C-alpha cells in the first residue's frame, strides 16, 4: 500500500513539469512556433476568468448566506432521526451537508470534529472518508458551466447530487464495516 502511495505522490509532483516539457518539445519537433502559439492561446485566459465572476458570485453568496445563518444547526436537528436509521452518527451530518457546498467550510467541519472526537474515532474516520471522497459540487458546477455561459443545467444537478449521496452513503457503510 505504502509503495503505491509513494508512487502516486511522486507522480503528482513530477506530472506538471514533465507535461510542460513534453508539450513544448513535441511542439518543436512538429515545427509549431511554440512561443507565438502559446501566447495566442493564453490570451483567452483573462476572458475565462472574467466570465466566471457572475456565476461564482451568485453561487458563493447563496452558500455564504446559508453558512452564516446557522441554518445547518437546525438542519442537523431535523435530519438526525433519519440518519440513525442508516448507521450515520448525527455528528457527521454537518459534513454531509457542507461537503458539496463549500470546500473551506467542509474542511472546517472536519477539523472541528476531529478535534473533539479524535482522528481515530469512528466519527473522525467517517468525516475523513467523506471529505476525501466528496467534492465541492456546486462550486464546480458554477465555475465549469459559468465559463461557457450555461444557465440551463438540465440533468447535471440531479445527477451530481445523486453521486454525492452515493459517495456519502458508501463512506458511512464502509467505515462502519471496516472500523466498527
Amino acid at each position, binding site marked *: 500500500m505504502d509503495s503505491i502511495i509513494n508512487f502516486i505522490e511522486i507522480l503528482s509532483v513530477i506530472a506538471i513539469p514533465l507535461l510542460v516539457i513534453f508539450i513544448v518539445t513535441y511542439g518543436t519537433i512538429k515545427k509549431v512556433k511554440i512561443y507565438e502559439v502559446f501566447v495566442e492561446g493564453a490570451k483567452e485566459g483573462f476572458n475565462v476568468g472574467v466570465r466566471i465572476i457572475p456565476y461564482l*458570485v451568485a453561487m458563493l453568496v447563496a*452558500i455564504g448566506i*446559508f453558512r452564516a445563518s446557522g441554518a445547518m444547526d437546525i438542519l442537523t436537528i431535523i435530519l438526525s432521526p433519519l440518519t440513525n436509521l442508516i448507521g450515520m452518527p448525527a455528528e457527521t451530518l454537518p459534513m454531509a451537508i457542507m461537503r458539496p457546498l463549500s470546500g473551506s467550510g467542509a474542511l472546517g467541519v472536519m477539523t472541528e470534529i476531529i478535534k473533539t472526537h479524535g482522528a481515530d474515532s469512528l466519527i473522525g474516520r467517517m468525516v475523513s472518508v467523506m*471529505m476525501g471522497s466528496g467534492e465541492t459540487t456546486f462550486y*464546480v458546477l458554477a465555475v465549469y458551466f459559468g*465559463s461557457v455561459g450555461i444557465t*440551463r*443545467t438540465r440533468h447535471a444537478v440531479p*445527477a451530481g447530487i445523486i453521486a*454525492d449521496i452515493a459517495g456519502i452513503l458508501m463512506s458511512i457503510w464502509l467505515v462502519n464495516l471496516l472500523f466498527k
Partner: protein
Amino acid sequence: MLNYIWLALILVGILTAIGWDLYDIKSDKYRNGAEIKSDVIYDNSNFLVEKNKRYNFSIKVSKSEFERIYGVKISKDLIQKATLIFIDNKSAYIEIYLDSTSPHIWFEQSRAQKVDGSTLQGKLYFQEAMGTFSDVKLVLNSVKFVKLNSVTNEGIVKYARIAVEISIGLIGIMSLWLGLMKIAESSGLIKIIAKSLKPITVKLFPDVPDDHPAIGAMVMNISANILGLANAATPLGLKAMEELNKLNKKLGTATDAMCTFLVINTSNVQLIPATVIAIRAASGSVNPTEILGPVIVATSVSTIIGIIAVKLLSKLKVFRKQLEGN
C-alpha cells in the same frame, strides 16, 4: 433545478437568521446591558488619570461571575488584555482584545459589534473615583441581530469578494494552460491523447467525435483530477468545456456530454486526498492513511453511480425537451 436550490439556500439562510435573532432577543442571550463585576489589573496603579489617553491593562472576570451572568460554563477565570480611555473620573471606554482563551459567546458578540471579530467594546464604571481598580463594573455595548449581521458581513459581502478573488486568481494559471493546450493542439498531441482512450470515451461521450480536441482536454482533466493536481485540473476542465461548447447547438443550455463531464468532475476521482491525510496526521492519528482504501472505493462508487444517473436522466423527456425546443 438549480433555481430551486439557489432559492432554498438564500431563503432558508435568511429566515433561519431572523428566527435565531428573534429567539436570542427573547432569551436575552447576550445579556445586553448587564453589569459584569470585574477587576482591573494594572502593574502601576499610581498613575494620573488623563482624559483621552489610552491605557493598556488587563481585565479579570471571575469564573463564577461569568457563569452567573451568561449561564454558560467556562473552565477558569478570564484574564484579557484591554485598553481603556477615561471619559471622566468614574467611567471609561474599554476595548477588550479577544484571544484563544476568550469564551465563544464573546466572539459572537464581537462579530456583531464589529466586522473583524477580534475586539469587544464596552464601558467600565468605577466604584469610586480613581485609585481603586477592583470591583469595577463592565458593561459591554449591546448587540442585536447577531445572525443577520453575520449573514450580511460574513455571508453576502465576504463571499461576493471571495468569488471575484477566485475568478481573478484563476486568470494566470488559466492563461498558462490555455497556451500549452494550444501548442498541444497545433502539434496534434491532443488528438493522440484523445484517441488513446477511445473505447471508453466513445461510450461516455457518444455525441463527441472521437478525435475532437474536447476529448483530449477531458482525458487530461480527468487524469489531473486522479492525481489531485487541482491547479491543472480546473484550467484543463474549462478548456474542455469550451471545446464541448463548440459542439453545442443551443448556447446557454448544457449538452449531454457537458452534463456527463461535469458529473465526473463533481463526483471527485482523486486517488489520494492529501489535505485530509495531512490534517489526520497533525491531529495525532496513529495511522493517517488508513482511510485511503474506503476513500478510493467510495469515490469510485460515487463516480460510477453518477455516470449511470446522468445517462439514465438524459433519457427523460423533461431534459430531452430542453435540448430540442427553443
